[in-house]
């Protein structure tokens, strides 16, 4: 375990990681110039291509089909999530995710149907970002990638590792992997469709949409990882009046 943490730290150091002095800070933004340029690209792309395509896809595809595609995608993410939960030392989550994968693969047509959800085994996504978080690795600076969207240095490091170390890559035949790639792509388009009003409110409505997106992204990610809003992050509204 200690070796893994050391390895993670080395990895993040190699990535040129920067660390905020305050983990709740919203002011720390060492890559702002790069980020703003990437954000402009993303906003234009979303307005001209991604948003319209997602709305067209969402309106043309029945909810049942879109749900099925998401189910398949989520199901085949489970093997890598079992690995992550193991690295996080969460035994119950390992057992639940393993059972969920077995049930939906065997009795849910390879994951199209979410049978396990009704057995009280709902999908709970995790990733290397959460593993790093449980190990105490700081999130690093906010980092927007062109056509990738918002993230942090820890996020993006985790994302690369999640993609390259996915055990499914070593087990499934090439055709199946290509199929999962398409499924994954459609799921991203569907997510864009389902979050349409949120993305509109963050990317296109605000006066400074870069800042609005950054603030919302960081707070949402931190709350998700720490299991909800902590009273420690609240401010005393009456302090300076």
């Amino acid at each position, binding site marked *: 375990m200690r070796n893994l943490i050391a390895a993670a730290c080395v990895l993040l150091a190699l990535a040129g990681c920067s660390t905020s002095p305050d983990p709740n800070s919203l002011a720390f933004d060492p890559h702002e110039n790069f980020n703003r340029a990437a954000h402009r690209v993303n906003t234009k792309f979303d307005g001209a291509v991604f948003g319209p395509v997602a709305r067209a896809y969402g309106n043309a595809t029945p909810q049942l089909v879109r749900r099925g595609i998401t189910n398949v995608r989520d199901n085949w993410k489970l093997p890598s999530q079992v690995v992550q939960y193991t690295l996080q030392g969460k035994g119950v989550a390992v057992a639940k995710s393993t059972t969920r994968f077995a049930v939906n693969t065997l009795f849910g047509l390879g994951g199209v149907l979410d049978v396990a959800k009704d057995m009280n085994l709902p999908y709970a996504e995790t990733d290397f970002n959460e593993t790093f978080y449980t190990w105490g690795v700081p999130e690093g600076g906010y980092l927007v990638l062109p056509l990738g969207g918002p993230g942090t240095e820890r996020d993006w490091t985790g994302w690369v590792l999640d993609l390259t170390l996915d055990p499914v890559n070593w087990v499934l035949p090439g055709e199946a992997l290509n199929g999962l790639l398409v499924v994954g792509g459609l799921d991203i388009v569907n997510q864009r469709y389902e979050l349409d009003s949120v993305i509109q409110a963050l990317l296109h409505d605000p006066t400074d949409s870069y*800042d609005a997106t950054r*603030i919302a992204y960081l*707070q949402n990610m931190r709350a998700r990882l720490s299991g*909800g*809003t902590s*009273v420690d*992050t*609240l401010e005393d*509204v*009456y302090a300076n009046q």
Partner: protein
Amino acid sequence: MPISEPGDRLGRRDVLVGLAAGGALVAFGAPARAQATAQAQALVSQISSELTQMVNSGRSQSQMYTGFEGILSKYADTQAIGASVLGPPWRSASAAQKKAFIAAFQHYLSRRYGKQFGEYKSAEIKVTGAKDGGRVGVLVNTKVVRPGQEDVAVDWQVSSGSGSPKVVNLVIEGVSLLASERAEIGARLDAAGGSLDKLIAELNSQA
């Protein structure tokens, strides 16, 4: 030396009296905090039922805005929220500007957040818990449940800093309204060349 030995002044009896008084403070303080938590929860339940009632009343969008603005001014401390969001310019503003800004801010908030009420027609707000943060107030956790859609976690920060319990912040899926609005209002003030009067006029014209 005028200062005597502590043992002379602070007798055993004084210590006991002191401890008893401290104990009494704890004894009276604890129920007061528990009461604050219960009051905050009751307040959020009350607002939730008024909001759901309004969203389902079949009223027009513009009537909904007026209704929402009424709920805001009744249950939220928009003066404290507005002052905190505006930051340093608040302190240098005149009394008339402050009054005009709070009215404009309230108008703006009701439009900005009331716009999506149409999507919440069959929504239910469930209070799931509360935690006392002491000086910052009580955080009441709720879940907005809509059939066939993901639940939305909404936390309400309730504080009695004004003398009575009022909502001072909303945290939606971890995202604080105070932080978001501080960025938005700050950006609008910059765009208005730093003129508070221009910002007020712009907030008033929010559709």
